[in-house]
């Protein structure tokens, strides 16, 4: 399990060093801090996406959620002059509610996550555009939410607050996922929902909660992005961002089949994606190749991981055949192994 994250971390370092050697500007403080800011922005909602993917589901609606919650948030602050704590609360609640609706549709009404969240993607985007009549919303010259703006886009000792927030959220969710009862249930449900149900786990609740957390984090990310761009144009704000989150989670070791992945992996996956984007700029690769580079690296990464796992499986199978007692710590994902100890079933 840890091996995967170690490999990913190593890859991150190697790529950074090589890029730094080709163009030292990559390692400049300014660039690194900018990178940290972006990692923070994109990491926050990737964490939620990761939890959803661990249940075996997917959330395609995040980018459109940003647009809808974003225009509402700006409107509350500017047009309606709502105090910023209330506006913040409204956006967070909005994210939680949207997540809850999706979670209920998926668990109670047994709809497929892909369909539900795809429809979410279309509906939220459409609602945002209709609400604003497709016009960009931004802050005027007044400082409607100077305090919040300072928090969201500020920094402590030079480190962007977004990055600090990501670390804090990752620590909290890391404890939830890897140490709490809920986390254990999440993995169990993702791996084998039926066995989880037969063990008395309320699987619907576990899955729906993952979508609610994802929605809540989307609310947080909305606020961060609004102050990052200072305006929201409803037709493009957050476009494709859910795909960044899915890519980060998959790169970080989450399996779309569910039951696999870690918080550290998701954070490292996000970081790797942002480094790749940055590298395209820094190395003077045509910006139009941006997505192509990203796609290629994800493809190679997932392929390599699969090959390594298959090799490990074969090794284990051989060890089992040789009747050597398997080691006490087995890597994950050794399903369907023809290994038997003791009596034959």
């Amino acid at each position, binding site marked *: 399990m840890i091996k995967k994250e170690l490999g990913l971390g190593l890859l991150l370092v190697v790529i950074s060093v090589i890029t730094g050697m080709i163009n030292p500007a990559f390692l400049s403080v300014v660039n690194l801090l900018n990178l940290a800011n972006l990692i923070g922005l994109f990491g926050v909602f990737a964490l939620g996406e990761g939890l959803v993917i661990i249940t075996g589901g997917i959330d395609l609606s995040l980018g459109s959620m940003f647009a809808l919650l974003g225009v509402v948030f700006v409107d509350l602050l500017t047009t309606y002059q709502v105090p910023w704590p209330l506006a913040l609360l409204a956006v967070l609640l909005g994210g939680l509610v949207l997540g809850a609706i999706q979670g209920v549709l998926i668990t109670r009404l047994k709809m497929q996550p892909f369909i539900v969240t795809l429809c979410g993607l279309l509906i939220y985007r459409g609602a945002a555009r209709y609400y604003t009549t497709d016009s960009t919303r931004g802050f005027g010259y007044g400082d409607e939410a100077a305090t919040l703006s300072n928090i969201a886009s500020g920094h402590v000792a030079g480190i962007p607050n977004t990055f600090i927030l990501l670390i804090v959220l990752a620590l909290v969710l890391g*404890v939830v996922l890897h*140490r*709490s*009862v*809920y986390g*254990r*249930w999440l*993995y*169990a449900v993702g*791996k*084998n929902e*039926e*066995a*989880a*149900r*037969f*063990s*008395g*786990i*309320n699987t619907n609740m576990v899955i729906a909660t993952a979508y609610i957390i994802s929605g809540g984090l989307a609310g947080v990310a909305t606020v961060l992005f609004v102050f990052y761009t200072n305006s929201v144009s409803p037709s493009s704000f957050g476009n494709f961002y859910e795909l960044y989150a899915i890519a980060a989670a998959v790169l970080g070791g989450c399996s779309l089949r569910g*039951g696999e992945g870690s918080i550290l992996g998701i954070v490292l996956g996000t970081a790797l994606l942002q480094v790749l984007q940055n590298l395209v700029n820094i190395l003077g690769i045509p910006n139009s190749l941006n997505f192509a580079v990203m796609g290629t690296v994800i493809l190679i990464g997932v392929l390599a991981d699969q090959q390594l796992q298959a090799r490990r499986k074969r090794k284990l199978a051989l060890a*089992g055949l040789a009747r050597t*007692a*398997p080691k*006490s*710590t*087995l890597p*994950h*994902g*050794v*399903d*369907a*192994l023809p*290994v*038997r*100890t*003791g*009596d*034959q*079933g």
Partner: protein
Amino acid sequence: MAEILFELVGISKSYPGVMALNDVSLRVHRGEVLGLIGENGAGKSTLMRVLGGVIAPSAGVIRIGGTDHAEMTVSEATQTGIAFVHQELNLFENLDVAANVFIGREKLVGGPLKLVNSAEMRARVTPLLQRLGADFGPDTLVDNLSIAERQMVEIAKALSIDARVIIMDEPTSSLTISETERLLEVIADLKAHGIAVIYISHRLGEIMTCADRVVVLRDGRTVGELARDQLSHAAMIRLMIGRDLKTLHTPPKRPPQPGGCDIVGLVTSAFPDRQIDLSVRHGEILGLAGLVGAGRTSLARAAFGIDPVLGGEIRIDNAPVDVASPRDAIRQGIYLVPEDRKKAGLVLELPICENVTLASLLNHARMWLVNGASERNVAKEQVRRLSIKVPSVDMEAVTLSGGNQQKVVLGKWLSMQPRVMFFDEPTRGIDVGAKSEIYALMRELADQGVAIVMISSDMEEVIGVSDRVAVMHEGRVSGVLERPQFSEYNVLRLAIGQALETVEAAAQ
């Protein structure tokens, strides 16, 4: 005698440790209905799979038209004219009747595009459907057909390949009485057209109606053959049973305690028109016997809150309990060791430790944070108590043998407070050593006052382990046997829906 279509001579099939078929011989004549009967696990399915070319026999020959084959492939079986109407129908619900009949053999318009000629396929299927008296057309979607109608589609498919033998495996298990009669008419019609039918069924009444000859299998051997005029329920049952059972029974340390679990008028979704009444006392092992599909698993699933309870109630010590979900059941101390341990019993990729505590994790947590030490202690205790043979509780469950996996499932429940436990086929696919350990464990639990219901299709197990046996037939309890009444004959009579012979009737 009519022409012999094909003959099986001395067919054996062995799997490691099991002799599924042992020197079975079978002859099928043109235009006859051959009944094939036997208990669960007597080897009927294996024999049919040999016939269909799905598995190769270990020994013996298949003689077709005078030539001997050591084995058949699926396509050879089809060419010989052997067709199946499976218990679980193999149809594509998303395609129409004609497409299903010609699946894999589609009529083409010709040309490089391999376009399908639907018109021709429909034209060819229509007369077949008419012959079977079906009231649906070739362009009906299979999804819209009832089970009986789908069976007609399967038979039409068999006719379309000019089948000479149609094998029907439990064809009436989900049919209504009138549908069953209709099927029997179709069979008579097939017979009149010179097509042979191998009719596999537990329903001896239907066998009596339609079979010209009956072959009985037991423990992988042919144990008898009855001609039409020799057929009777008693004769068939006598042949189906008849091996000496070893007694495994360990008597309870003390008589069953008052109180326990009463199931009163329970209605399950599998049989919405039947009610189940069943009682199991504390300290007692109640065997639940019956044929596959008699509703035993549905009963356990309903009592455990997996399937909805449509009516009636479950009482523990005379207090009604509400089991809307497995969580409710577990809270009441009702546990289920499911039939399919790999799918429902364990999360195979999780370590033993996490599997053991999966149902009780909140007991090993403070403020929702898992206390790893407490969890491991419990898992280790269960590994020791159940003598699960593993070097460490961190091993993933997938690496264990069937017996050890089952013990992990047991460990999950024993680490809590069972009051009523359902075991669904607890020793299926488990070796002899682990089996007797599990029996001993059930007895130990019973002696501690747990009420135990053991669903089993293994006659030896039912008769050997239980203190009482309840038998289910088509969704209801058809009888309860006390130990003096235990016999394979009695269990089987109840399982096929016959009443027990009273002493007077037996004396006559």
